[in-house]
């Protein structure tokens, strides 16, 4: 009994709370409808490669129909509706999300591969919070400091990524609806399920037909949506390459555009940092959501004098990470979202080896099926390494060192991206100085990857433009 292994027995969350259909149509004009063509695609569970459902691939005709439905709803119902009435729907949606949060969390973990602990304690509470927060703004827009008579833009075409499927949906839909716009949203092709469950929630909330439309598909569907002549506003979260393409195709039109793109955030640890919490912050910064986070702290900049100690503590902490079944309540790191992403992570990691950085992976047994990558750090990385410059979007941390605060700032800013950064020090004045120097949209001090609907989020440089969240998040949907 005093044997010294405390093995946690499997503690799987029940799948029975989710009732998935075998196939899904497109959600247009308040109803699920078949696509004009016969094209479909399958969405799988990345932890097992099991097929979860068959989903319709929307073509140009379907996008056209969805935009027309959104336009009708905007002109006849949602646009003219007083803000206080719109708020009622948003509050109702928020409450239904809370009521169905367990079901939605399980569906998210099944489709995305993220641990149930994160979808249950992270994603879903934030999704509800986003709707509650923007519901509160709906009848107060003239007091938002955006003019005395702010008006909606019309129809918003929104394209979201696969890393936080439902949360990104909430970030997009909540402010758009609060400000009086209607939306056509395209979820990512590997994670369409929670958006389709959200369509059910719109029906359950009696949201007027056409206010929210969901079209599923891959790149061409997204392209058809963002370039559609009937779309007044495009909001995109995803890779910098795709974002750049969208910006190019929208140039010369009168469409409004906000982009939230990639990142290569520096997490800067000074020698006077609270070390145990800094190590937690490093782990949370890069291994949260398997590192599939645009604002992930993928570059650790640690002051030379504590580098060895921090690395030793970090490795010890990483050996306690529990990698495996996303539905197990004790899992810390789940599955990589897709075979394609896994291949990309492997390719970039291999360049780390080839360019002479030293790889260390947490000892863990990876499952035989599905897509997995052990939490990994590279030491001996310099600014010249590809793994210090390119976004890996996986559980891979590049460790660099610095000697002076000025060097930390120079290295942190030496990236084409500018989304987020972290600072770890017990010295308040240094936090403020660093926040001033760092060219990043979000700077976290003694924490990392913290989100709140009241706080604006967004980047500059190649991380995009526009802000989501907070009062600033309204601006992207008003004229």
């Amino acid at each position, binding site marked *: *009994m*005093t044997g*010294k*292994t*405390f*093995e*946690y*027995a*499997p*503690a799987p969350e029940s799948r029975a709370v989710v009732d998935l259909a075998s196939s899904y149509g497109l959600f247009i004009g308040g109803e699920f409808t078949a696509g004009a063509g016969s094209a479909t695609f399958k969405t799988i569970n990345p932890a097992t490669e099991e097929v979860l459902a068959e989903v319709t691939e929307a073509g140009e005709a379907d996008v056209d129909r969805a935009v027309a439905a959104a336009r009708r709803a905007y002109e006849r119902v949602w646009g003219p509706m007083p803000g206080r009435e719109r708020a009622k729907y948003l509050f109702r949606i928020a409450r239904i999300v809370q009521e169905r949060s367990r079901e939605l969390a399980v569906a998210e973990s099944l489709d995305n591969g993220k641990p149930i*602990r994160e979808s249950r*304690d992270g994603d879903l509470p934030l999704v509800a919070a986003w709707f509650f927060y923007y519901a509160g703004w709906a009848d107060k827009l003239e007091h938002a400091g955006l003019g005395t008579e702010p008006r909606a833009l019309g129809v918003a075409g929104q394209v979201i990524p696969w890393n936080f499927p439902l949360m990104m949906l909430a970030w997009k839909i909540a402010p758009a609806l609060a400000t009086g716009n209607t939306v056509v949203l395209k979820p990512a092709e590997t994670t369409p399920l929670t958006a389709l469950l959200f369509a059910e929630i719109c029906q359950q909330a009696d949201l007027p037909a056409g206010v929210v439309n969901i079209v599923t598909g891959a790149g061409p569907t997204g392209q058809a949506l963002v370039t559609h002549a009937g779309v007044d506003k495009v909001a995109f979260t995803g890779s910098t390459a795709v974002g750049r393409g969208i910006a190019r195709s929208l140039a010369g039109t009168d469409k409004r555009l906000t982009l939230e793109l990639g990142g290569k955030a520096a997490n800067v640890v000074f020698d*006077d*940092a*609270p*070390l*145990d*919490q800094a190590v*937690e*912050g490093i782990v949370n910064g890069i291994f949260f959501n398997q590192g599939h986070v645009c604002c992930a702290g993928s570059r650790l900049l640690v002051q030379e004098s504590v580098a060895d100690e921090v690395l030793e503590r970090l490795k010890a902490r990483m050996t*306690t990470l529990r990698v495996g079944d996303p539905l197990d*309540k*004790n899992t810390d790191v789940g599955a990589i979202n897709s075979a394609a992403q896994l291949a990309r992570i492997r390719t970039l990691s291999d360049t780390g080896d080839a360019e002479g950085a030293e790889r260390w992976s947490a000892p863990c047994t990876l499952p035989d099926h599905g897509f997995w990558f052990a939490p990994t750090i590279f030491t001996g990385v310099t600014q010249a390494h590809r793994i210090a410059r390119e976004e890996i979007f996986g559980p891979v941390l590049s460790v660099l060192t610095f000697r002076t605060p000025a060097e930390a700032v120079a290295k942190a800013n030496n990236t084409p991206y500018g989304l987020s950064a972290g600072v770890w020090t*017990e010295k308040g004045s240094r936090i403020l100085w660093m926040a001033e120097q760092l060219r990043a949209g979000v700077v976290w001090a*003694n*924490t990392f990857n913290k989100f709140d609907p009241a706080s604006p989020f967004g980047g500059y440089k190649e991380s995009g433009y526009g802000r989501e969240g907070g009062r600033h998040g309204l601006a992207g949907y008003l004229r």
Partner: protein
Amino acid sequence: MTTLLSEATGSESALRRFLSGLPGVDQVGAEGRAATLATRSIKTTAKAYALDLAISMVDLTTLEGADTPGKVRALAAKALRPDPTDPSCPAAAAVCVYPDLAATARAVVGDRLHVASVAAAFPSGRSSLEVKLREVADATAAGADEIDMVIDRGAFLTGRVQQVFDEIVAVKQACGPAHLKVILETGELATYDNVRRASWLAMLAGADFIKTSTGKVQPAATLPVTMVMLEAVRDFRAATGRQVGVKPAGGFRSAKDAVRHLVVINEVAGPDWLDPDWFRIGASSLLNDLLLQRQKMATGAYSGPDYVSLD
């Protein structure tokens, strides 16, 4: 080890410098980490293991003015056989009493369990060193093989760390072969930074165990406080090679609390501390909840308070 000890404890200014040079503890981060660990889901075989381990770590405690020899005898008997209906139930680790009842406890448990006695002007720590040492001598003479002393918080908080250090060294010496648990009274230290510094101070002075609370001050043991102390013993062993135990006390009511602490040991200090020699839980009513949960695991149904013995 000797260099760290001699450098850190060479003078009061060196000691103060050493303690204030320890890495700080960010309150929000520490509490967040503890809260995340508290979400671990411990079921079936893992729960059975954890319940038995927790029972074997209990310092079954009574520290009331109203304690009687009869109550202590009953408590000692319960510590020996927590569940008389089930011989597979492990014994508790120790009985923890006031010095005048140490002999009574020892008479019941013989050499089968430890007898812990609070001493050194418990619970306030407010007396002269002479009186404290005399009380320790009394307790060990009466059969206590573990001494739970409390530090002088006034001295610690006003920066007289040398005084606290010297007092612990003296008490440790007076203990002889008995193990010394040093109570930090974390509820009065107020910050996690102080908890970490006091932990190191006690360990540098020779504590065999560091203990959170007397049970007379609220808040007593909390999960983040125990976590910070476990980080301290982990780091102290890495620096000196000497392993020190941890004892949260007070505030434990439910088996769930106990299991959460075992999770924190497992993931923060490491499995070496998952042992009654290195981790104790000072509690009284907790034991009954552990027993009820244990019976539930065995029978599949909850019994009730009449199926475990009153303290």
